[in-house]
């Protein structure tokens, strides 16, 4: 029976969607596991040490960082969301819990979000229509919570033409519509 059960993507299909509008490519990502890590009171040093041992980067405010397996971005003081390959880390909390023990509170976030990767030679015109981040001035590795079309999202700037956007999974279709509308208006 298990063979007939397949998870659907946030957009409700068996396989993730890719939309191309002019130079803009919007890719739904289905292969990333997520968890939030919040260090408990007075345990910052322990969290730092455990993360180092796991080769898990924990960047400073408004930043994202990538390691070999783990990547993460800052969301609040002493709190991060970590990313790992879904294929190897589907049960992401059980990978993190042994390393952090009771020094941090860890919550699985994989199915709470829809992830869209935006790509274009230059994303500035699109991003300045979508959110209030000064995208051309933000450095690569900038991460922030933003509002896109009334939807609260996390934005990670990987480069001038590369952006990761995490939005609420239940608003996946609406968020994609907002991205498509903004991209179409630029043609």
């Amino acid at each position, binding site marked *: 029976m298990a063979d007939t059960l397949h998870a659907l993507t946030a957009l409700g299909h068996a396989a993730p969607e890719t939309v191309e509008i002019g130079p803009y490519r919007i890719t739904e990502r289905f292969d990333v596991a997520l968890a939030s890590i919040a260090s408990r009171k007075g345990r910052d040093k322990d969290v730092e040490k455990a993360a180092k041992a796991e080769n898990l980067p924990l960047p400073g405010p*408004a930043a994202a960082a990538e390691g070999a397996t783990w990547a993460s971005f800052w*969301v609040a003081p002493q709190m991060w969301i970590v990313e790992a390959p879904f294929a190897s880390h589907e049960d992401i909390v059980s990978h993190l819990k042994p390393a952090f023990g009771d020094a941090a509170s860890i919550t699985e976030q994989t199915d709470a979000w829809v992830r869209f990767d935006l790509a274009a030679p230059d994303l500035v015109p699109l991003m300045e229509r979508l959110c209030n981040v000064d995208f051309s001035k933000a450095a690569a590795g900038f991460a922030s919570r933003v509002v896109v079309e009334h939807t609260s999202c996390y934005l990670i700037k990987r480069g001038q033409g590369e952006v990761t956007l995490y939005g609420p999974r239940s608003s996946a279709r609406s968020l994609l519509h907002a991205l498509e509308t903004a991209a179409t208006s630029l043609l």
Partner: protein
Amino acid sequence: MIINHPILGPRDSQEFVYLGDASLMTRPDGMTAGIEEFHDWLYNRDNPAGLHRELWYHEQGDRSWLVVTRNTVTHEITSVELARDVARKMGRSK
């Protein structure tokens, strides 16, 4: 209006939600303080024409609570602190 977030730097005030007077942070103990003191905390607010300390929540940001000192006449913001740091300075543990 721009709020200089102590961690994230200058941010548009649209990202924030206003709660009210920063004195809300110092709720008297309802079991030991008198009814007058509790009533005063709950209902009575100063309405100064000048500097006012108030609580703002960075809802579309890092979800931190801030104590913002704002001039109610000019809207000039003279100081922004994390509410957490303010509470700790008052000797609170959390």
